[in-house]
């Protein structure tokens, strides 16, 4: 049956009309799509291109090599040595357990570390390398490299690790580095991105942390193309970092090594300072510790051993500990009195063995008294009564002012950790801190370096250097940074009367060269090396009247931690001073524990090597010879000291 033509025609017209309408709508929509395309691809292209680049390009920092540290003679103190580690990529390894088992046959794996690596591998993307063994020896690395075909996904990697060739000797000076902690980051308002690099190490203690910015260097960067899951596809370009600056210390590592060995297991500290330039030639604190252990990550057992040792190996005693200076403070009192004009060097004071000060009896160390004492005798024999008398005449304010002029009570600016400012007390200080009036008794105590006065060995060395030169010499620890000589700390003239200084130096000379001097037994025989010094004993206990009455208990009979500290300060050679030395032996029992060490150190520093025996008095020579031989055995050449910390 044929369809009626009319119907067909009508239907055709309708379909054509509606078809055109729909076709028109479609054309319109195509136009809209085209317009949208143009808008996105032409008008907004730059913006989207930027986003695409941001997507694909990752900037990875390249850690710079840390600046190396040398001693004043160019001996390495902190170096970067290659550190080998073994990493594993999960997706390349395939069967992780099998590969680890195979690897375990070649090198010793730490089960703890393996467990940690396994968890990390499960957590992170399969293409990221995970460290399975750190600080692997060169032999192990070679074995892994040779067997590479049987170890899919395993790669030996090399990085730089900090090492301290001087070991114990300079631990307190250079300190050590360690991984960046939350606390390190919190010190920055906006932490440098470099610190976020995994395994990046930052200075924790000592010069390493104080000169962190100098040593760290500038990060390099490489731009890499990554895909959506972060896999690196290729490196686009790379800019190497700028290594940190090379730092040269003023310390002489050989002298430092000698002193550490000489101090042995004593809880003691020695500062050797160049009186002309302020250079710290040695700052030794004993016992010490091995900073390399901290870089590797010290074990809990090792750490508690260090922490719980009552000789405090971790403390940097030369700068962070303050002791009552004892009689070594007497030069300060004497110079204050001379400067104030309240006495002359020849004025004498009668010492009956004590002085009555506002109803309280202040004892001289020598119960029988010194009789008539002038300045030289007072220092030589360390008469206390003489200084009680001076204190009453000159007053605490002028003593405190002189102490500050000589570098006490001030935290000297050297890049070591926890530098103490010690304490130079005066009336205002006592009022503010103790809420009490200053009394004359306080002045009497302060005059002989007891009571409130506290000084660090570094401050004592500075004081001695200033007395020796008359200049406001300050300590300097950094000699050069990247070869640039750092400013001298020689200082201006102190403006003290040269005659007064000469009298005090003269008296200090008698201390160790006059038969009646307190340090005569520790004198130097060599004519041109002779030293001027001052002994000090700082009391740890109080001597009660009752004890005094029945006779003071001898130090040797006391438990170690209640014995007196022994102190000695000196400069040498007397005629043309080159070095100032401050020695403190904690609980050494008295200054006789410090002065022989000071003499050995002084001679070692002046000669630059083991001094000839004839520099010592005849009767000491055999003992010194034995000591030198023992120390020579304990000190391997030019190296880390053989001793282990207690």
């Amino acid at each position, binding site marked *: 049956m044929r369809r009626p033509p009319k119907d*067909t025609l009508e239907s055709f017209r309708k379909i054509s009309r*509606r078809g055109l309408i*729909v*076709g028109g709508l479609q054309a319109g929509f195509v136009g809209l*799509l*085209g317009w949208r395309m143009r808008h996105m*691809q032409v008008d907004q292209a730059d913006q989207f291109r930027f986003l695409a680049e941001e997507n694909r390009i990752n900037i990875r920092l390249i850690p710079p090599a840390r600046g190396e540290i040398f001693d004043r003679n160019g001996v390495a103190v902190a170096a970067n040595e290659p550190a080998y580690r073994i990493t594993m990529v999960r997706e390349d390894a395939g069967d992780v357990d099998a590969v680890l088992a195979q690897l375990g046959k070649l090198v010793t794996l730490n089960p703890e570390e393996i467990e940690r690596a396994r968890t990390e591998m499960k957590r992170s993307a399969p293409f990221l390398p995970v460290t399975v063994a750190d600080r692997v020896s060169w032999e192990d690395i070679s074995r892994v490299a040779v067997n590479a075909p049987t170890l899919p996904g395993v790669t030996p990697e090399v990085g730089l690790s900090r090492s301290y060739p001087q070991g114990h000797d300079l631990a307190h000076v250079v300190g050590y580095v360690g991984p960046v902690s939350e606390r390190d980051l919190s010190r920055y308002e906006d932490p440098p991105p470099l610190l976020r690099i995994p395994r990046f190490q930052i200075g924790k203690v000592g010069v390493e942390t104080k000169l962190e910015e100098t040593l760290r260097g500038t990060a390099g960067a490489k731009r890499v193309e990554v895909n959506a899951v972060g896999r690196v596809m290729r490196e686009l370009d790379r800019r190497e970092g700028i290594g940190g600056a090379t730092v040269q210390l003023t310390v002489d590592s050989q002298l430092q090594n000698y002193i550490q060995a000489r101090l042995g297991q004593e809880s003691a500290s020695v500062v050797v300072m160049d009186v002309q330039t302020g250079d710290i030639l040695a700052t030794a604190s004993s016992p010490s510790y091995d900073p390399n252990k901290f870089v590797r990550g010290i074990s809990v057992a090792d750490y508690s051993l260090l922490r719980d040792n009552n000789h405090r190996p971790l403390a940097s005693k030369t700068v962070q500990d303050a002791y009552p200076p004892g009689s070594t403070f007497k030069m300060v009192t004497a110079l204050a009195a001379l400067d104030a004009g309240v006495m002359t060097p020849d004025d004498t004071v009668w010492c009956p063995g004590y002085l009555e000060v506002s109803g309280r009896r202040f004892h001289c160390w020598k119960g029988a008294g010194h009789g008539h004492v002038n300045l030289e005798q007072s220092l030589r024999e360390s008469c206390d009564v003489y200084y009680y008398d001076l204190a009453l005449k000159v007053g605490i304010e002028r003593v405190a002012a002189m102490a500050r002029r000589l570098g006490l009570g001030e935290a000297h600016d050297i890049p070591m950790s926890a530098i103490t400012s010690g304490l130079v007390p005066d009336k205002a200080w006592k009022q503010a801190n103790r809420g009490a009036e200053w009394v004359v008794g306080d002045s009497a105590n302060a005059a002989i370096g007891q009571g409130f006065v506290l000084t660090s060995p570094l401050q004592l060395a500075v004081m001695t250097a200033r007395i020796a030169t008359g200049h406001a010499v300050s300590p300097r620890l950094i000699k050069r940074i990247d070869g640039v000589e750092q400013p001298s700390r020689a200082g201006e003239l102190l403006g003290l009367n040269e005659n007064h200084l000469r009298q005090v130096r003269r008296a200090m000379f008698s201390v160790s060269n006059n038969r009646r001097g307190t340090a005569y037994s520790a004198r130097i025989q060599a004519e041109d090396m002779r030293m001027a010094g001052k002994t000090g004993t700082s009391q740890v206990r109080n001597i009660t009247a009752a004890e005094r009455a029945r006779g003071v208990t001898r130090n040797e009979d006391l438990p170690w931690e209640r014995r007196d500290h022994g102190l000695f300060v000196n400069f040498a050679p007397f005629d043309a001073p080159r070095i100032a030395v401050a020695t403190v032996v904690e609980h050494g029992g008295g200054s006789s524990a410090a002065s022989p060490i000071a003499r050995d150190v002084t001679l070692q520093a002046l000669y630059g090597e083991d001094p000839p025996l004839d520099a010592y008095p005849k009767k000491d020579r055999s003992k010194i010879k034995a000591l030198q031989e023992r120390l020579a055995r304990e000190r391997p050449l030019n190296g880390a000291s053989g001793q282990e910390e207690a």
Partner: protein
Amino acid sequence: MSYLEYNVKHVPSGPRKVLYLNWPLAILLASVAAIGFLMLYSVAGGSFSPWAEPQIKRFALGFALMLIVALVPIWFWRNMAVVGYGVSVALLIAVELFGAVGMGAQRWIDLGFMRLQPSELMKITLVMLLAAYYDWLPIKKTSRPFWVFLPVLFVLFPTFLVLRQPDLGTAILLMTGGGLVMFMAGVHWAYFAAVLAAAGGLVTAVFQSRGTSWQLLKDYQFRRIDTFLDPASDPLGAGYHITQSKIALGSGGWTGRGFMQGTQSRLNFLPEKHTDFIFTTLAEEFGFIGAFSLLTLYALIIAFCVASALQNRDRFASLLTLGIATTFFLFFAVNMSMVMGLAPVVGVPLPLVSYGGSAMLILMIGFGLVQSAHVHRPRGAI
């Protein structure tokens, strides 16, 4: 319904039919498919496997199918419309009962040599059925409520089945495609106005239903709508696809980043880069020029179909041609809107370009019908 209804006097017969094929249309289809091969080669990182090679084979098969379908007289296909629709519905029900689950939705049946998506087949058979229906229906009855209600059922039944899979993209395509065929068949304006008003109401209801016990869409569908409305709200989650797609498209600029140089696709920032988001790769690598060229090719395909339909005095043939063109249009319009951030991500492939067997073969069969209509069109005066 017989052979005699057609004015066969001028209809070519035998092998000569090949000369009467709509060759420009065939060439356009082949060009679009070639762009597809190129892009599949590119997203595979410069390799024919795993996508370009099977796609070429499928297109070859599809092209052959198109020729076969084209050479079979159009009246045969008209008679097959009801059968085709019935088979499609049966397959959709089969999928519902024991179809394989892929990408969280039941969509295909494994035939061994290929995976058949009945919903794809339905897009063509629905158009066929509607065209045949309006061919059969006396024109006066076209707008009568009962005769309008009937085709609406034809449309809604498969739509409902597809929605259950769930496949929102295909459901929208079926509904819109069916509606447009009815519109072109001449159903009265008022029905469409009413439906649009109702749709407005429904959209409101859908949004109102969110979070209630009678929620009308799945959560992921709601999230896709959210993402569409504000991709930045969830740049690493659901919004990731749209954001990355827009970045890729926009970064192409005028001339693109070069063949196989598209960083977004090469570095896997683009999702589904060989299927739904392949247009983005094209736009990234060949820029506005490349993307607009493809759009132009698509527009030309539609234009050739419309032209062919307008020349054709046969009601079934023109409606079928227009319907298939419309379905084709909906495919690329929805896909492109989606990747350009104009529509939510609903999972509609780019026709003839996206990797995928069913869609390609069925579209080619659809164009075979268009060709058949073209070859067998009544010629001469009516």
